[in-house]
């Protein structure tokens, strides 16, 4: 690991809570590490567990999925599905030898700009600890 290694994080955020929370962090000018890139989905329930593995395969060092707090899902149940699926994925990651520290899930509401900052910092820090991810062979990208 080189000394100036900066982890590359891909985050999937639900439109209604976490994406809005990240927007609020911006509106409130809360500063956090630039290592994180956000992909907007309508619901955390949309996040296919394969996306997480795919992100690692494509060059991410860490992945974050964030949705509404349990009970607050805009689609009523989507975050419960996400919690089940991704909880299983986390166990599976350990089983296949991927450091589970590379994967985080969080609940960030539309009013939790400061919590979003903390979540990002934790995710980046853990990915930094885990080092560059070279576990999967990179697939050729069809651009």
């Amino acid at each position, binding site marked *: 690991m080189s000394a100036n290694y900066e982890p590359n994080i891909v985050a999937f955020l639900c439109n209604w809570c976490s994406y809005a929370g990240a927007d609020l962090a*911006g509106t409130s000018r809360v500063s956090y590490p630039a290592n994180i*890139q956000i992909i907007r*989905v309508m*619901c955390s329930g949309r996040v296919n567990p394969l996306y997480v593995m795919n992100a690692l395969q*494509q060059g991410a060092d860490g992945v974050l999925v964030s949705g509404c707090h349990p009970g607050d899902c805009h689609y009523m149940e989507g975050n419960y599905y996400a919690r089940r699926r991704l909880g299983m994925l986390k166990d599976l990651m350990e089983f296949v030898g991927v450091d589970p520290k590379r994967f985080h899930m969080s609940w960030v509401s539309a*009013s939790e700009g400061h919590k979003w900052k903390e979540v990002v910092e934790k995710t980046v820090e853990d990915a930094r600890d885990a080092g560059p991810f070279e576990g999967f062979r990179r697939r050729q990208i069809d651009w």
Partner: protein
Amino acid sequence: MTEKPKVGVYVCHCGINISSTVDVDAVAEFAEKLPNVKVARTYSYMCSDPGQVLIKKDIEEHGLNRIVVASCSPRMHEPTFRKAIADAGVNPYFLEMANIREQCSWVHEEIEEGTAKAKKLLTASVAKVRLLEALEQKEVDAEPAALVIGAGIAGIQSALDIADAGFQVYLVEKTPSVGGRMAQLDKTFPTLDCSACILTPKMVDAANHPNIELLTYSEVEEVKGFIGNFDVKVRKKARYVDFDKCTGCGDCAKECRVKDRFPNEFDQGLSKRSAIYLPFPQAVPAKFTIDPDNCLFLKKGKCGKNPKCQEVCGTEAIDFEQEDEFVEFRVGAIIVATGFDPFNPSRKPEYGYDDYPNVITGMEMERLVSASGPTEGKVKVFNGEEEIEPKEVALIKCVGSRDESVGNEYCSRVCCMYVAKQAHLIRDKLPDANIRIYYMDVRAFGKGFEEFYDRVRRENVRYIRGNPSEIFKRGNKLVVKVEDTLTSTPLEDEVDMVVLGVGLEPRADMRGVMELLRLSQSPDKFFLEAHPKLRPVDTATDGVFLAGCAQGPKDIPDTVAQAKGAAASAMIPLARGKVPINAQVAIVNEATCRGCAFCVSICPYSAIEMVTVNRFGNEVEVARVNEALCKGCGSCAAACLSDSIQPKSFRDSQILPQIAALGVMK
């Protein structure tokens, strides 16, 4: 995809909001080299009219068919740019936004990292936009009716406006009477009109309006569906009094075996009521209600030989067999006007509210000075030994507001003025009393406020700047311990009575409404509006609007103004008669669907059904999406074993290239 994607990229400076942390020219230059990009430009404000014209001109000149705007959050301006490109003949769903403001320039400080990240986000957007599909905006009919939850002044005003416009309104109130907190107030600042005098006519109007169905002592149990078509189920709680037979005469309450035993909620517990009661004399509807927690017969099954109320009721209105009823109806829009709770000063034990009867809240003071209140408007307190007319009165502002120790950082906006008003009312009743107000700041910001504050000071009310630390008893006096911060003098002020100017808090029971309507809370825990400035009455749930203190503390004129705003917004779908439905719905590839019906069991909206199709001569079951019901969450797609069901605009084939673009730029 028949047409080759020709992408136009537009990078916004947003004045210096973006350009100070992102080198926008470098980003545009970088974008020009991305696959399928024909044009990349920067502009100071993309959302402005010239910015939009720039896009439209390029679409015409360069034949662009996909647009990426790198600017603010899509939650802000996606509709703006969708409309702009649609005006130029491009399908509005051929748009992708890279959020390089809220999620980049505003949260990062170094221009290098800001620029690098903006490039990444833009690359992901370009990757996705090329693969988007054209979608068609469809509409469904909207039910020309509205539900208003809460019948305080906000709910009443919204209901009246909508009803006057000719639409059906269901006004649901949890307590037995409409009127809310405003009905409890005595006079209203700064004009000193009597609250009841201006409110009761509106209460009666709401009850008598031919277009309003008033459901008091009722709660919304269930809300299904969406803007235009919400299916609502309301529980009408049993009053144990026949609504049609009760004449409101009150004979029952006088004869009740547990007469005048229970704290009267309307008088803030300063008076007592029977188990059968009318909340207050002007209650609308003027129908009695039996409180099941305190009625002997309902609690123990026995009340003497026969319940007295039943014996004396001339119209035989008492009905202990009554059960909760359910009412179901459909509305096109919903207004949430559930109001607030006054701060409970027991949470600041240093003020001794629980210990001393002569420490009272502002709400209690309202009842005390009210001619219809428990003391018929006489200001009297019990000092622990005797009931006295106070000579020395202290009022304390900001109790439970601007106070992080109780978790309320916000200003409650009404206390400065209601405390001033109460000082004036006390002065009116007790010309010789010494009145002082302890304050942190005086915020007299509204129309006529400053003038009123001046008037109160001229009435020999002393304003002392200081936030009391403690109230304790010495003899039969209360001691307010405080530092006068303008003179740096510590004081121990002996008084006969303390009025705590309590702030406004979100309702303790708001959670139920939140979950019912999928609303969020802002950091102050009041309901969150869709945009703090430009959409202050809207919520994230389409068709649901906010009015009054449910959205945040406000005074009566602001509440009425917001209620009228919410009514006007709610009437848009009702008047149009149609609402657009979500175009980004899920779609099934019937050729690969294996008919397992996993998606059917997962869909929160029951939008997927199994249908039989003929495949090469065989009858097979496949899933099919009802587009009118699908909200496009995509939970089905993540569950599908064969990736056969996919939400439009968020397909695997559209998201995976985004992931690849972010990874490849490591």
